[in-house]
């Protein structure tokens, strides 16, 4: 066990996998100087510029070339810098990486990790703040990971690098500096296994990525008010841990899903629809969602905050649900 930040945990995972497998390499803008958030700092000294590769500002080529490099036997880790910029390379991800194996009749796999720093982070405005994880759950062929802790960022990134599927890997910019205990050595997490953040009996709160911590704080406060909330961190959205969520809701009879991304068409809807269908009888109250309104993200802090789902809003919603 070591205490490290979410960013360091990601770096550790990448370094360990690059030591283990010479075919693993990372490519993106400014990686040679450590990456825009320092999440690659120093790696070039150990692995050199071919394996910690700078790139031109060519997102389509970063993604597209990585598809070819993956088909030709290497394991690229693609740095998109901001999830927003990955929108410059959607054909390469969705039409090529996600479908190549299937379209070509299983003649190839496309083992690549697409790192997409996501989310709101101090006045970055509408083109540098988006959370689009829900999109990729809708695309056959893709795995979607949304780690919330340093330990998970290590264990899931290692799993993503070893996975033969293209994995869209969302790291949240707001928690780069979050510290936590991280297991040493070769700890690889399975996809589709949720993490029990906190046990409870009255209501289940499902979340992921940075928003998980807001949910966790809300549960803390609710406990003081006598409401026992169980908090589940999904860790990955595709696959997502239906068994864990269903088991919890069977126990609590109530489910609130909260995520930073827009509520309309967000993955919370998929979870709400699935639980509402399969646990129809077990539900004591309607499944609720707390997520972002359907507005772009503003620059001015108070306007930006209007998009955030706060601890207070979660508590308020839970209390409404308990009153049912």
């Amino acid at each position, binding site marked *: 066990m070591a205490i490290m930040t979410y960013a360091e945990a990601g770096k550790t995972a990448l370094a360990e996998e690059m030591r283990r497998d010479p075919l693993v390499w990372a490519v993106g803008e400014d990686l040679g100087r450590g990456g825009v958030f320092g999440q690659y700092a120093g790696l070039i000294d150990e692995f050199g510029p071919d394996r910690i590769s700078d790139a031109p500002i060519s997102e389509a080529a970063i993604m*597209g070339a990585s598809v070819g490099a993956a088909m030709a036997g290497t394991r690229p880790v693609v740095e998109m810098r901001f999830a927003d910029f990955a929108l410059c390379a959607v054909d390469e991800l969705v039409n090529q990486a996600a479908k190549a194996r299937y379209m070509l009749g299983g003649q190839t796999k496309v083992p690549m990790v697409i790192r997409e720093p996501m989310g709101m982070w101090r006045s970055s405005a509408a083109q540098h703040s988006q959370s689009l994880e829900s999109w990729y759950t809708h695309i056959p062929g893709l795995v979607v990971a949304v780690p919330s802790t340093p330990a998970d960022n290590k264990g899931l990134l290692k799993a993503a690098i070893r996975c033969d599927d293209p994995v869209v890997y969302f790291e949240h910019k707001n928690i780069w500096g979050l510290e936590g205990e991280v297991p040493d050595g070769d700890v690889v997490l399975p996809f*589709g296994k949720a993490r029990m953040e906190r046990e409870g009996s009255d209501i289940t709160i499902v979340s992921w990525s940075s928003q998980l911590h807001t949910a966790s704080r809300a549960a803390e406060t609710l406990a003081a008010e006598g409401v026992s909330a169980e908090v589940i961190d999904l860790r990955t959205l595709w696959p997502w841990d239906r068994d864990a969520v269903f088991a919890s809701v069977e126990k609590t009879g109530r489910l609130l899903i909260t995520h930073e991304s827009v509520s309309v068409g967000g993955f919370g809807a998929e979870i709400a629809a699935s639980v509402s269908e399969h646990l129809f009888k077990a539900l004591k109250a309607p499944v609720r969602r707390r997520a972002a309104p359907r507005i772009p993200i503003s620059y001015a802090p108070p306007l930006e905050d209007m998009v955030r789902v706060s601890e207070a809003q979660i508590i308020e919603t839970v209390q409404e649900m308990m009153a049912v």
Partner: protein
Amino acid sequence: MPGTMTRNIDVERYLEHHRMMHRIRAFEEAAARANQDKLVLGAIHLSIGQEAIASGVCRNLRPTDYLLSTHRGHGHTLAKGADPTAMMSELLGREGGICQGKGGSMHIADFGVGMLGANGVVAANINIAAGAAHAIKLKGDDGVACSIFGDGAINRGPFLEGLNWAGVFKLPALFVCESNGFASTTRTDAMTSGEGAAARARSLGIPADEIDGNDIVAVDETVRAAVDAIRGGGGPRFILCSTYRLHGHTASDPAAYRRKDEVDAAWKNDPIGRCAQMLRDAGVASDDLDAQRDAAVFEMDQAYETAKAAPWPDLSLAYTDVQDIGDPRGRAF
């Protein structure tokens, strides 16, 4: 660049090309028939008239070299060494299809011979090929990755991004542009600003040749020199091959948007006819050339018959090769 007047040529080599071009032509004609027979349901794009490029490029690639092609990729795939029966079965969506019937004409591939796929998205193969070349470099192999694309593809961003990428990383990449004058129903010159593909490639630091793509000798010799240079560590190269799309954009397109005299003139410039003439001038008997053509037609008719006789793929294939992780049924039902 050499023209096509009499020259002392390696007759064996060009007999191979002649044979390959006829095999491509016969495959396309069989595919066109299958399309008329309503046995090919998706759109197919024939390369009739462009065979010299496929044969000339692939003859100079090894099975271990990589090729990435376009929607008009039958000829490239065949020339790279794929089995026509498996290809035709793919076009018909049958069992035994080279992609198990899942991809069809626009996703035809044969990794066994280094053909990493046609592509349904114009220009998408350029970055993918650059990446395959990147993998070759990282692994320290001596292979080459080649992408062949059309003159319409040079107006998409990946053309700039992929060529710049190959130049920056000095990759073993060969870029071949089949300039057939059209992008579906539109003349490419009307939608292309500047001097075209070769000038663009040069501006991106890639040495570029401009040749008559219907002259098999020009294609063979230019590609051979380029591939040697690339294998020697010389970095990426670009070749612009002028040609003409003798049929419509798809097998169902009558191409009424072009004048008959233009098409008639183009037929006189048919690369197979020119190769045959050259071989006759070099002393090859017409009968030998006809025999190659007839064998090709027979082979591809057989391929069509075999494909026709094949059953549909097993339905369980719908759920295979999606991905390792997660349930493809999505538990929606």
